[in-house]
């Protein structure tokens, strides 16, 4: 309560609005906090959020200093709502929303407020801040991180709708599309007529890749670091579409590769003795078509309704590789077509399927080559294999269809970039952030490219010649060197992306089938059977795990933290950093010189991208990989 009084006082001092009315509203708010009719009132009347009093109470001088940037152009149009108990660090988000692309029409309202906390942004947000989200919910935007269920009374649909506003920043055009659609459907939403036009156009926020590295950790870069906060409420279950990651296409990859494997088992000469029925292939193929369609439709819905979330996934250094997964899944479907359905496919299908892969490649490989913040030495991680394997799968499909030049084209491109990626990953460069320190199933992706490349080369050349064999043996070696370390694959949280890591094993099994066709022997046949059994077992185990997680545990689609990271580091977790000098000086100089144009790289984890907040920072001299250890919270050192 004190804080709210404080808020009121502060507010009275600075706002030109009607203090008494504000107070009244506050009181109303408190009293009718949970009531629906109150909400309606609030919805209508409350257009701006009261960040101001909150901010002053929370952020104090610091915030006030920052605040000046904010344009206090217009006076408050409507009353501001003050927050009762611990003020929500909403303000930070509010201002952030001024600058950030996730914006709602209501963003403009924040501009009206003398936001003290505006610039401070997310740092002040704490997930633990429990403020009253309801009034906030209607007036504030998306960026509210606060709000726990404890403060919220029993839900009613109206309240739920209000809460939805928090996710608006992730919606397409900040929720306008959704409103349009619901307007079209005749749903009446009260806020719609009162939404003024946004003052700024939503600017494109390109989250620099450093932010992802700073804020996330883990082999799949999906775990939030302790010092970071996210834009969306952590304790609330987000809308399903928001929780549906692109890595769900991994299921399609896993199942469709199984279909190919059973097709090869049924049709190949060396495995005739197993008498595998071609129906298995048919059933699996139909299942995979269904899966691909379902996942594609859901993700298409996500693209339509939550485009900003999709954009953020695209900027994620690991998830971006999964954007190749749908197209690879389509290629697998074409490869696994049962003979009973179709014997030959039209060549134009290949061109259609390869065009998206080609365009994506141009973009991603170009990023690697032209340097900058997404250069390979920085972002290389085993998931990059997904961007390379698409070339080989396309070459394989094209060669199966009888095309000549196209498969060679993609094989060449894939080979060149695979070599680069392979060497980079093997080097484990110190500037590489994303390589998991421990063994993780993602490492099985190493096996994918050589095995598919060997099959593709065999098709292109017409026979399983030396080039194919070399590639195949490399794949086999990598497989075994990972399989004997199976003990180290422990302690990881299951995620849908694991399905994507099964297709390399299936791919190795299929390559073994092809190899045993030409080098028929007991050893090769045994190997074939063993690998096929292993692949099938793993897929079955994954299936069971998925079902358990889906129906029993209910957390198959957890909140997708990785896409909700904030643009800037939480300010209060700033620390003084010890300036690294001495041994790394010369390296640092070189580092500086190279990244001069891209200072974000230099400053790395220690800084936000906002130059203004860089005052007094020496972080420039700290190399990132050192800084991680040094800069974890609770380490204080006086900076020189």
């Amino acid at each position: 309560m004190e804080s709210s009084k404080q808020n009121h006082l502060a507010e009275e001092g600075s706002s030109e609005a009607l203090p008494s009315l504000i107070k009244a509203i506050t009181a109303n708010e408190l009293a009718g906090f949970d009531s629906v009719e109150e909400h309606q009132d609030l919805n209508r009347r409350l257009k701006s959020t009261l960040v101001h009093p909150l901010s002053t109470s929370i952020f104090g001088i610091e915030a006030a200093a920052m605040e000046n940037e904010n344009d206090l152009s217009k006076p408050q149009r409507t009353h501001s709502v003050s927050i009762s108990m611990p003020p929500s660090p909403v303000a930070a988000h509010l201002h952030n929303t001024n600058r950030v692309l996730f914006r709602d029409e209501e963003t403009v309202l924040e501009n009206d407020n003398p936001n003290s906390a505006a610039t401070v942004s997310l740092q002040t947000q704490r997930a633990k801040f429990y403020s009253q989200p309801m009034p906030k919910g209607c007036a504030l935007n998306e960026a509210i991180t606060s709000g726990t269920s404890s403060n919220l009374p029993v839900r009613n649909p109206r309240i739920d709708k209000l809460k939805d506003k928090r996710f608006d920043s992730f919606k397409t055009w900040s929720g306008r599309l959704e409103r349009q659609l619901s307007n079209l459907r005749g749903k009446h939403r009260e806020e719609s007529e009162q939404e003024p036009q946004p003052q700024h156009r939503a600017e494109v926020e390109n989250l620099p890749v450093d932010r992802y590295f700073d804020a996330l950790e883990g082999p799949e870069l999906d775990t939030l670091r302790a010092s970071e906060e996210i834009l969306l409420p952590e304790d609330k279950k987000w809308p399903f579409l928001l929780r549906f990651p692109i890595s769900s296409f991994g299921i399609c990859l896993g199942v469709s590769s199984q279909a190919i494997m059973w097709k090869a088992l049924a049709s190949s000469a060396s495995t005739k003795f197993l008498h595998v029925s071609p129906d298995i292939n048919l059933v699996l193929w139909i299942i995979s078509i269904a899966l691909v369609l379902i996942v594609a439709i859901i993700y298409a819905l996500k693209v339509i309704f939550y485009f900003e979330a999709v954009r953020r996934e695209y900027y994620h250094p690991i998830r971006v590789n999964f954007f190749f997964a749908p197209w690879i899944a389509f290629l697998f479907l074409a490869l696994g077509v049962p003979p009973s359905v179709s014997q030959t496919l039209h060549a134009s299908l290949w061109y259609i399927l390869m065009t998206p892969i080609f365009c994506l490649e141009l973009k991603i490989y170009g990023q690697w080559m032209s340097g900058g913040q997404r250069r390979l030495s920085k972002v290389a991680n085993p998931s990059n294999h997904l961007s390379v394997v698409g070339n080989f799968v396309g070459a394989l499909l094209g060669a199966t269809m009888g095309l000549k030049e196209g498969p060679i084209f993609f094989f060449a491109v894939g080979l060149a970039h695979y070599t680069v990626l392979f060497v980079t990953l093997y080097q484990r460069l110190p500037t590489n952030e994303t390589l998991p320190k421990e063994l993780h199933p993602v490492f099985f992706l190493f096996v994918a490219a050589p095995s598919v490349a060997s099959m593709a080369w065999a098709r292109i050349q017409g026979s399983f010649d030396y080039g194919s064999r070399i590639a195949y043996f490399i794949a086999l070696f990598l497989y075994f060197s990972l399989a004997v370390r199976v003990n180290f694959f422990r302690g990881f949280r299951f995620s849908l992306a694991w399905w994507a890591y099964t297709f390399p094993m299936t791919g190795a099994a299929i390559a073994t089938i092809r190899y045993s066709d030409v080098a028929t022997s007991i050893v090769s046949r045994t190997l074939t059977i063993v690998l096929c059994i292993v692949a099938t077992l793993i897929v079955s185990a994954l299936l069971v795990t998925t079902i358990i997680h889906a129906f029993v545990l209910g957390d198959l689609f957890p909140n997708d933290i990785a896409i909700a990271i904030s643009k800037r580091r939480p300010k209060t977790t700033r620390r003084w950093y010890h300036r690294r000098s001495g041994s790394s000086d010369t390296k640092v100089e070189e580092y500086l010189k190279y990244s001069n144009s891209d200072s974000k790289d230099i400053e790395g984890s220690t800084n936000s991208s906002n130059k203004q907040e860089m005052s007094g920072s020496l972080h420039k001299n700290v190399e990132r990989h050192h800084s991680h250890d040094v800069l974890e919270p609770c380490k204080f050192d006086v900076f020189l």
Partner: protein
Amino acid sequence: MGEQVPQSPISVVIDPPIIITATANPQEPKEAASPSDSILSRLHAGYFRICLSFGAQVLLWKTLNEHVNETNSIHSIFHTHSFPSTAFFLLYWLALCTLILLSFLYILRCIFYFRLVKAEFLHHVGVNCLFLPWISWLLLLQAIPFAKETKNFPCQMLWWIFIVPVVILDIKIYGQWFTTEKRFLSMVANPTSQLSVMGNLVGAWAAARMGWKESGVCIFSLGLAHYLVVFITLYQRLSGARHFPAMLRPAFFLFVAAPSTASLAWSSISGSFEVPCKMLFFLSLFLFTSLICRPSLFRKSMKRFNTAWWTYSFPLTFLALASAEYTREVKGVVASGLMLILSTLSVLVFLGVLIVTAANTHTLLRENDACLN
């Protein structure tokens, strides 16, 4: 200094800068002129890009000529049987004169300004430009118009004369890459490093065309091995690498030139444009597409004219040459169309850069060249 004690006045002497504004008109490369000090001191190996582009163009025209004579494909489009030979001769002599002039000037520079040449050698970009003269000579050697084949003795002698410096430079530079700490590849790698690789590959190409398969394979393997290393290193963009000036961004097109040259070299060695050659050609094509989809990369370098703009020209020409070989192997509409497009593009770019250079001769040899930053 805040000292009050009067001391002997400290005289500050400013050495006259080495690069002074030339009083004489800067000459176009093709005009014969007496070398003046200022020009010698400002002429650096990067100017040989002009000769290289000329040489590559000559070779392209020669190849297209042969192609037209062989396949009649262009005949069906343009209804000509051959390019006018006078134009071709003219171009060849132009290229030769340019090259002779520049080589002469550079020899004089080595004599009189050896320390500048040494500075070039020690610079991480300049050292790669030292390969440019030899590549130009090797190209012109291949493009000799009056000889049907280049297997006669003078040509072979000339080949030896040109390849020996390349190999010496190779030994020096490649050795430094992994032995000299200050010049480790991770520090000095930049897109112009592919020029050293191209030197080897062009030498191998010339050798193979002269019938020396073994020497060709030898130099080719040298080039290919180091190309692999350079390609990977450049793609990694290690953060320890030294700064690459934005004015030199056209050097990214060397990514296109190197695989094309490798493809041409291997096709000469193996006799036909097989799958490895096709793969290298396709890689080159892909990189070319990737670069032209990124015009923003070159925006800074396009603001002011500099000799690095010539680096737009010869990689395209090499790509067109490779596509000509490709078309010869894979006959078809798509391949011929590709060759036509690439050749046209290369000629247009060459003419464009030539015109821009002619219009900007006053900035030649005067500017603070980014090549030697």
